[in-house]
């Protein structure tokens, strides 16, 4: 009988607090992850929205090609018109 009472005391005084402590730790960790995941999702959506302007790179690419072609034409004309530097 005494041993049963000792077991009851151990269950209530030792085992129950340990279980509560461990489970609260797990729950706290899981709960703290939720807002972080929310911020990650928001950042990913914002990053995806920022990349909506990527197709404009194609316009930039075309404009760069045209600009370099114009510079090449202008440089070719200058090469014909102007004398070279001495020793060049």
């Amino acid at each position, binding site marked *: *009988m005494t041993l*049963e*009472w000792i*077991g*009851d005391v151990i*269950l*209530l005084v030792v*085992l*129950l607090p340990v*279980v*509560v402590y461990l*489970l*609260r730790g*797990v*729950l706290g960790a*899981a*709960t703290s*992850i*939720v807002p972080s*995941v*929310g911020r*990650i*999702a928001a950042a*990913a*959506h914002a*990053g*995806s929205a920022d*990349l*909506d302007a*990527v197709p404009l*790179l*194609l316009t*930039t*690419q075309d404009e*760069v*090609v045209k*600009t*370099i072609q114009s*510079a*090449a034409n202008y*440089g070719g004309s*200058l*090469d014909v018109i*102007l*004398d*070279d*530097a*001495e*020793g*060049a």
Partner: protein
Amino acid sequence: MPAAGVVMIIAVVLIVATIVVYLLATIVALRKITAGLDDAIGAVGEIIAKSEPVAPVVADINANLDAGVDLLEGLLVKKAGLIEAVGLIDGLYPSAAAAGLRNFPESKTVKAPRIAEVYTRGTLTLARLGREAPIAAASPNGPALRNAAYGSSAARTLYPDGRELHAAALPRSPVIGTDSPVQYDPSEEVGGPRRQMPATSSPERS
């Protein structure tokens, strides 16, 4: 049943109930995490899909810009010479000469002529493009020079028979006032054709 057994059963039930409560709360939190990660993964997938063509386009843009840099550097050095090219660059963009020209590593050791200390950027550009004013070419340490003979001779070659400065006879400015040879009467001429047209040339007045 002895009292100790009842207490033990109550203790076990209490422990199990505690475990259930906490595990249910943990499951709810984990479900929220899963939903959030699914949302984030979807957005990350969009980022990957949208950024996929960026690399080749940027590489193509860089290749074209590299070609442009090679072209302009080569043309500048060919036409102005390495030393004056460095001086011109340093004049337009102060301290830029220290970086040198990409295709001319020796340009980093060139002492840039002090072209910009005397002339403005526009003058520098015109002077370097046109070669009629080889400013600061003789001595980078002294005052800027202009070779007048060389500068004018280049332009003179465009007019081998002599450059016409102005027409042989230009119309003179009209003489106005009460004693002018051509009098204007507003009461007669307003609204009607002019009685006498103004002189178009000056031979009769000269």
